[in-house]
């Protein structure tokens, strides 16, 4: 398994500002994923982040709004830019253990935009 630490665990932000969420993994992983989970809802994949390459975004998500960094095999950040109340959600980092096909999740970052 993998231990995934996300920071911050929660935040309340003003609209128009940006928040960067950090994800640290206790082992080297090839694939890291960022999800959004709106309250009481399912998980929606935002993007896939490989080390050393541009993140791949899913339909409906764009790099200008959700820039992602992946500087090494154990760390990634997701920035939620120019926030609006509609961005209020839980953001989750996930990693896949290569070869096992198993995905593990961080505890999430609960974001409230006011």
């Amino acid at each position: 398994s993998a231990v995934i630490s996300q920071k911050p665990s929660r935040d309340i932000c003003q609209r128009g500002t940006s928040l960067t969420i950090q994800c640290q993994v206790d082992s080297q992983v090839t694939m890291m994923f960022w999800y959004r989970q709106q309250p009481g809802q399912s998980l929606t994949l935002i993007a896939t982040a490989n080390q050393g390459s541009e993140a791949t975004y899913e339909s409906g998500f764009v790099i200008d709004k959700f820039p992602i960094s992946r500087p090494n095999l154990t760390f990634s950040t997701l920035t939620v830019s120019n926030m609006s109340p509609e961005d209020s959600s839980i953001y989750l980092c996930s990693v896949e253990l290569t070869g096992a096909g198993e995905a593990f999740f961080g505890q999430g970052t609960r974001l409230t935009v006011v």
Partner: protein
Amino acid sequence: QQQVKQSPQSLIVQKGGIPIINCAYENTAFDYFPWYQQFPGKGPALLIAIRPDVSEKKEGRFTISFNKSAKQFSLHIMDSQPGDSATYFCAASMSQGGSEKLVFGKGTKLTVNP
């Protein structure tokens, strides 16, 4: 089709009962079917998973039944306990460019009464 349809949306059982959660998929290219358990304020945790080459998998009190021809799979929880009260998500993925992107069902909120 990328969807995974999950039912019921919510489920209430008595302690010792056997809740059953069902999922159906359309895309026959899916080759990995995990179930996740999520407690409030926590990230999803991998519970059990199955691949299409088997029809059933058991881990402790949790069993996945898989019907490839019907494109359906289900989670059974034997001797359910109040501590099993959580939201359960089924998911499906396929190997795509080296990554296994998960598509989630909408979730089932399970309540196990004492």
